[in-house]
């Protein structure tokens, strides 16, 4: 065989192959066209398209503009719960569609026949009368001229999915209702403290009327500074999967304060990771305030007990100390007498010393008396009292304290003052309190002059006793609380001194006032003179 022939043969063979391929292409196209061009064809043949059409797990249907179903696969029939295609083909889709979706479906059909695509969810009523959720994607089918002649819809049964979603929504709504109506604060918060969600009860706890003022904000805008560290700890615990709870105080939106107690738990996502902090918080303001009140009362009680104990102690101590003092004094005086009797006049120095011993025991005894009177509980017995004498007694009592701190006390008392009409011991108590406070104030401000001025003035039948220090004074913020019980700036104080003093002053028909001066403070005790007019 000649090579030319061989080449010819090969080319012919190749040509035949190409031709046969083209033929097959044509045949396929033809078949497809036949299929599509002839919608009325009911008897499917065993070709590829039909196989695909039938084997598709989802419903595929062809539908005319007016809703007539031209073709539908067996998956579609299954959705409709029938095995007979004759029941649906040639029938209107609207016959099996729940009425409430008709309008929307018509719009969709119109859109598709105008060349658009569409998607919608609707409910179907099967031939067995069940409602079923479907989801359909619709596209137009065009002929070779590009004219749209049918709607191709691929429809999926989403009944299960839909019902689950619906159930979820219902559950969510139910949960929301519960949370919304929950009397305690329920909130969700992220790791940084931003509030994701909060129920109305929570907003009410913060006195917020508008959720925008709270949701999206940080909890640290509300939690008082002293509790923030602990709250951060709580947040970190929860995000590590550990429940935690704490009590803290918040600043409300309206500027108030409120005690809260929160129980926080981790909120897990589907992967088991902590997605948020869920906290149930309740108002414990009433309880806390009661606790505080109780504590105050206990403190007051403890103070009274201390005073009582001190009183008993002082009384007992006074008695015990006076016995040896009595003996000392008497011995010393007897010694003087013996010296004199024996004519030992050269022992004058010894006698002087003995006299001093007697004087000192008398002084010691005076201090003990003062102390005992000071702590002794007694109802006020007003009497005419010379203010000079009263101040002398107090200054004698305060002398050790004064010397200890190296403070000078200047007393200015004009001559010819009327006598005061007060209870001696109680007035002493007030004055001692004022002087003690002043000494403490001086000690607490290193810049202060170590001077305390006490002056007395008579005005309108009243004596004004002013105690002035040159310390830092009392800040304007604290002044309104100055005479309030249990208000104190001293770590070991219980804040009863000034309030008690004012109470005593007023019970005696007097007053106790504070004046700010530069520098320092003036406490002015006003007491009545003479016998009060009845």
């Amino acid at each position, binding site marked *: 065989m000649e090579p030319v022939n061989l080449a010819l043969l090969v080319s012919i063979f190749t040509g035949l192959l190409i031709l046969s391929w083209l033929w097959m292409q044509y045949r396929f196209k033809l078949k497809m066209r036949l299929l599509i061009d002839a919608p009325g064809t009911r008897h499917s043949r065993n070709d590829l398209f039909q196989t695909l059409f039938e084997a598709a797990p989802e419903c595929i249907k062809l539908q005319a503009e007016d809703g007539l179903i031209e073709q539908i696969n067996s998956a579609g029939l299954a959705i409709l719960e029938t095995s007979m295609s004759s029941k649906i083909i040639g029938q209107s889709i609207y016959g099996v569609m729940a009425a409430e979706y008709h309008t929307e479906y018509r719009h969709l059909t119109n859109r598709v026949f105008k060349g658009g695509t569409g998607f919608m969810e609707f409910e179907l009523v099967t031939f067995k009368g069940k409602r079923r959720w479907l989801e359909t994607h619709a596209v137009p089918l065009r002929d070779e001229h590009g004219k749209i002649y049918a709607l191709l819809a691929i429809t999926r049964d989403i009944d299960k999915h839909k019902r689950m979603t619906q159930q979820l929504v219902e559950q969510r709504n139910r949960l929301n209702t519960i949370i919304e109506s929950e009397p305690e604060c329920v909130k969700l918060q992220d790791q940084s403290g931003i509030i994701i969600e909060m129920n109305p009860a929570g907003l009410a706890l913060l006195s917020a009327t508008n959720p925008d003022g709270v949701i999206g904000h940080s909890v640290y805008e509300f939690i008082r500074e002293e509790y923030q560290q602990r709250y951060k700890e709580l947040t970190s615990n929860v995000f590590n999967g550990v429940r935690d709870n704490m009590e803290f105080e918040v600043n409300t939106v309206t500027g108030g304060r409120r005690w809260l107690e929160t129980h926080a738990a981790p909120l897990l996502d589907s992967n088991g990771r902590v997605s948020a902090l869920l906290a149930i918080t309740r108002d414990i303001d009433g309880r806390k305030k009661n606790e505080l009140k109780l504590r105050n009362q206990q403190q007051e009680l403890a103070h009274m007990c201390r005073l009582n104990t001190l009183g008993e102690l002082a*009384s007992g101590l*006074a*008695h015990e100390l*006076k*016995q*040896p*003092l*009595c*003996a*000392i*004094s*008497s*011995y010393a*005086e*007897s010694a003087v*007498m*013996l010296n004199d*009797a024996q004519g030992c006049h050269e022992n004058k120095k010894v006698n002087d010393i003995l006299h001093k011993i*007697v004087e000192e*025991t*008398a002084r010691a*005894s005076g201090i003990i*008396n003062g102390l*005992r009177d000071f702590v002794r509980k007694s109802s006020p017995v007003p009497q005419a009292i010379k203010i000079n004498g009263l101040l002398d007694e107090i200054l004698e009592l305060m002398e050790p304290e004064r010397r200890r701190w190296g403070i000078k006390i200047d007393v200015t008392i004009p001559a010819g003052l009327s006598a005061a009409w007060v209870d001696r011991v109680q007035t002493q108590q007030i004055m001692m309190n004022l002087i003690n406070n002043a000494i403490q104030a001086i000690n607490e401000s290193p810049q202060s002059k170590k001077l305390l001025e006490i002056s007395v003035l008579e005005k309108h039948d009243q004596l004004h006793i002013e105690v002035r220090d040159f310390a830092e004074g009392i800040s304007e913020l604290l002044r309104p609380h100055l005479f309030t019980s249990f208000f104190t700036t001293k770590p070991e104080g219980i804040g009863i001194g000034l309030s008690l003093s004012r109470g005593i002053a007023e019970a005696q028909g007097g007053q106790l006032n504070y004046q700010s001066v530069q520098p320092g403070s003036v406490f002015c005790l006003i007491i009545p003179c003479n016998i009060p007019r009845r």
Partner: protein
Amino acid sequence: MIGQTVFIIDDDASVRDALFTLVESVGLQALCFNCADDYLAQSTELNCGCVVSDICMPGTNGIQLQKILEKKNTNLPVIAMSAHGDIPMAVEMVRQGAIDFIEKPFRNQLMLQRIYEALEKNRQQQSLVQKNNSISACLQALTRRENDVLPLLLRGDSNKLIAREMILSPRTIEVHRANILKKFQVKSVTELSMLVKNFPLTLT
């Protein structure tokens, strides 16, 4: 019977000793007791002088002691001392007849002054008692008639008046008068009336 003594009663030993020192230093007699009961046990013999007692003591206290002494009619002045300085207690003591209430620590001078006053009061009462005793002894010595005459005599009536009232002769009255004066060891009726002035005469 021993002479005037200061009975010191105090439960505090040093106060007791200091007081003893003081009292002795001025040459007075003193006896110390550490409680009122110890003193009361011997109070029948120890009844001349005065008591210086603390108020607050174990056992019988100062106030009770004074009441007991009062009842026993010992005429023993009590000086009360206290380290408590309690005014109501002091008032109670003084109201009951304590000579004074002295607060501890006391000044020796004041204490001595009070002790002297108390001793003086005691002495006066003692002599009054003696005088009364002698008066009653004299009264015992009078006859019935003399006893009848005595009040009329003390009224200052003359022999004549008395004789007329008693329907006796003035001469007889004169004898009675002389006997009465003799028995009372006085020289005149004026002297007699001075003697019995404060004596509660229970004349029949």
